[in-house]
């Protein structure tokens, strides 16, 4: 089955998008809308077909991957890019869970979106998203990846603003798109930078790797190239921060929860937001030579993970908690990438996709059963009323906080271990002039990062436990009449949730380091192994059991704290909006304020342009026009009402001319 063409994979969702889009468009005029059965079948069929073809291809994939070039895309002087696909172990992993989880979530959405006016439209968007995401991970060149990159951003925009009658949803969607655009410009500039040193061919991943290996092999002018590559790396990383919601471009992700919950699960938790991690892994050959950039990535990842985890503590909206949790977990992944543990970061992407999707779908089921209520303060005691949902969420919860045996444990443990093994020492030297004291010491950054990572794990456990306690334990805090309506979700929603819960529990066993299972690492080795070997690791390995023990301890500690604080405490009745107040708001919306400053500056400039510069231009225009008008009026006063005088004048003029000609002797 290896002869299955690669372009089949993106083709299926694309057909699905077109067909469903057409159905949505045609049926938009009718009152009733299209039959949900047909639309639902179609919308699950095409992602499923894509998934099947990925599976078929996966089994027979040769070691080096499959490459195929479809056709030429852009061919102009200085620039020639093909549309090509690259199916290797990295894209295989990504594709498997993108299409797999995509199919499951499409199925879940059948139940969730039941009865919505834009039923067909929703699935058209989902299919378009899957197409873009497949293109993103399957393409063999940066430019074609960029197509998917912006495509997923577009779908995210469309789906966040899906319920577009509410202006707030639209604003959230706009914010997501514009912030992503900022990152995308970074991506574009990164591509341009690469092209300046290697021409347009270098956009191809294989060519890029070959180029980097060649440059690094000859040490002569490596410095200047490394400088340019570093700038390009930073540009790409800016792109990643936009797409994967890292500091400073992360404000859009919590707002993106305005979209339907399946969308949050698929796009804003499992797949799209991890494309930044994918890109770093894809460009690992380049990044491992850029130590400075890697350090920046670690720092940013660390800050994001910590900040988002703390912000997650303050949220009352169940989806917002999960959103900040996603940001925090993405921070982990970036930390791992920064430590050049690309396989570990992809592994975390993999496990995270399962447990976070399960959490989101569970949250969606909760919201569904409570008829749209998202404030956790009004929930409680749902364990008995929706047992399946509760079980799914609790399994996923155990996975995310890193209880041994669950998938999150394996990946998080791995990341923390790799962070500790990082070889990064910052020498600090400073003197206090007054006392003439001279200090000189070294900060072992690997330990700092490790400690922050561990601390973040504790906080993660706290806020996730809070979520579970507030939602499923205690007693119901909502109004009485709403209590009667609480019901378990339909089967189409439950089946995907259960499957994902299984994934959340067992996905970790692909790479259970402590148990000696390294299937995942080995399968990724052809892509990132060589690159990772470049980085020098410190020898300060303490032993796997210590890391595992510390990680478990952190999770248990967090759970304990949460239980102590929220388990018995009386939850204050919900007042007003679910947004955090006071100092919590300052912390949560810190980056929104930063963005707000930028937006204000742009608006101020726009105001200056509109009210000053443009008025000035108009004034100049008016001035010229006015002068012309005055002159014209002056000239016109000679002109009107005196026809005979003018004839007389012209006769005199002719006479004068004749005299002149005569006197100058021109004629005779």
């Amino acid at each position, binding site marked *: 089955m290896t002869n299955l063409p690669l372009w089949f994979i993106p083709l299926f969702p694309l057909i699905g998008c077109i067909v469903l889009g057409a159905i949505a468009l045609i049926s938009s005029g009718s009152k009733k809308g299209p039959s949900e059965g047909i639309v639902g079948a179609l919308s699950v069929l095409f992602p499923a077909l894509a998934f099947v073809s990925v599976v078929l291809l996966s089994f027979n994939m040769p070691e080096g991957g499959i490459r195929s070039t479809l056709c030429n895309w852009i061919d102009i002087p200085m620039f020639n890019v093909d549309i090509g696909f690259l199916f290797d172990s990295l894209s295989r992993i990504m594709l498997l869970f993108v299409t797999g989880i995509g199919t499951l979530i499409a199925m879940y959405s059948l139940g969730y979106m039941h009865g919505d006016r834009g039923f067909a439209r929703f699935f058209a968007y989902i299919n378009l998203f899957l197409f873009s995401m497949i293109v993103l991970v399957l393409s063999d060149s940066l430019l074609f990846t960029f197509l998917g990159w912006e495509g997923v951003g577009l779908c995210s925009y469309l789906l966040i603003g899906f319920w577009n009658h509410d202006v707030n949803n639209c604003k959230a969607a706009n914010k997501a798109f514009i912030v992503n655009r900022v990152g995308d410009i970074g991506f574009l500039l990164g591509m341009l930078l690469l092209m300046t040193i290697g021409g347009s061919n270098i956009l191809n991943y294989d060519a890029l790797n070959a180029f980097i290996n060649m440059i690094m092999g000859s040490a002569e002018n490596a410095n200047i190239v490394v400088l340019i590559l570093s700038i390009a790396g930073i540009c790409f990383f800016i792109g990643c921060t936009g797409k994967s919601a890292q500091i400073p471009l992360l404000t859009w992700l919590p707002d993106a929860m305005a979209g339907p919950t399946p969308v949050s699960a698929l796009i804003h938790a499992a797949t799209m937001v991890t494309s930044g991690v994918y890109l770093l892994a894809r460009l690992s050959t380049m990044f491992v030579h850029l130590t400075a950039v890697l350090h920046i990535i670690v720092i940013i990842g660390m800050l994001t993970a910590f900040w988002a985890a703390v912000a997650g503590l303050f949220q009352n909206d169940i989806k917002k908690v999960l959103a900040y949790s996603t940001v925090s977990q993405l921070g982990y992944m970036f930390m791992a990438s920064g430590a050049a543990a690309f396989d570990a970061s992809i592994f975390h992407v993999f496990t995270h996709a399962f447990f976070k999707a399960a959490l989101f779908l569970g949250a969606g089921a909760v919201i569904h059963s409570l008829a749209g209520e998202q404030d956790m303060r009004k929930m409680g005691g749902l364990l008995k009323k929706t047992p399946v949902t509760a079980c799914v969420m609790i399994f996923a919860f155990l996975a995310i906080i890193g209880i041994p045996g669950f998938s999150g444990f394996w990946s998080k443990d791995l990341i923390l271990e790799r962070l500790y093994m990082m070889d990064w020492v910052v020498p600090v030297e400073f003197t206090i002039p007054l006392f003439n004291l001279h200090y000189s010491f070294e900060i072992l950054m690997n330990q700092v990062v490790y400690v922050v990572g561990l601390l973040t794990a504790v906080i993660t456990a706290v806020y996730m436990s809070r979520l579970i306690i507030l939602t499923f334990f205690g007693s119901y805090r909502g109004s009485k009449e709403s209590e009667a309506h609480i019901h378990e979700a339909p089967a189409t929603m439950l089946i995907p949730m259960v499957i994902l819960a299984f994934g959340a529990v067992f996905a970790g066993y692909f790479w259970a380091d402590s148990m000696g299972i390294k299937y995942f690492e080995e399968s990724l080795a052809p892509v990132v192994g060589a690159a990772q070997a470049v980085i020098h690791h410190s020898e300060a390995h303490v032993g796997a059991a210590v890391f595992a023990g510390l990680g478990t301890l952190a999770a248990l500690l967090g759970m304990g704290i949460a239980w102590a604080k929220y388990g018995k405490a009386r939850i204050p009745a919900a007042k007003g909006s679910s947004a955090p107040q006071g100092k919590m708001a300052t912390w949560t919306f810190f980056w929104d304020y930063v963005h707000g400053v930028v937006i204000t500056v742009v608006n101020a400039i726009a105001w200056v342009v509109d009210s000053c510069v443009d008025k000035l231009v108009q004034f100049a225009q008016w001035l010229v026009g006015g002068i012309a008008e005055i002159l014209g009026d002056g000239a016109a006063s000679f002109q009107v009402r005196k026809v005979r*005088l003018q004839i*007389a004048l012209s*006769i*005199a003029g*002719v*006479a004068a001319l*004749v*005299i002149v000609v*005569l006197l100058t002797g021109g004629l*005779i």
Partner: protein
Amino acid sequence: MLALIYFIILGVIAVGSALCVLLSKHPLYGALSLVVSMLSLAGIYGLLGSPFIGVVQIMVYAGAIIMLLTFVIMVLNAAKDSKTPMFDKVSLFVIPAALVLSGLVGFILVRAPLAFDAETVRGSVKITSETLFNVAQTGPGYFVLFEVIGLLLLSAMGAAVLMAKKRLGTNEEEK
């Protein structure tokens, strides 16, 4: 020599009646003097050996145009108005200017060498019609021009009728 005498007589009549046009108070008198001027000019054409033009001159100018003019003057009762002065300040400026111009042109003219040509053709009907309509011999230029003039006259007639007819629905008494 006889031709010169005839010419002087006709020329004096032509100039004199033209002056009458200039100086007459009522347009009707002006029109009648104009007829005299036209007639004497027709005579001069004959004298010069272009009888056909002379005849056309009498027919079109003296016959048609001036008749039309007279007719209009008589129809519009108020053609003679005592309010409108014969000359005004502008005229004081125009007359010297025109005189100076013509004086200059005349000055140049008299210095130009001019003489009658012996082989010149008599502008008879035959010659004229041959030139106009014998396309094979003289080329289509004049013929096309002739047709175009016909069109021009037709359109002028149409325009005149359109302009001068009383607008339907307008009441002259209102004005």
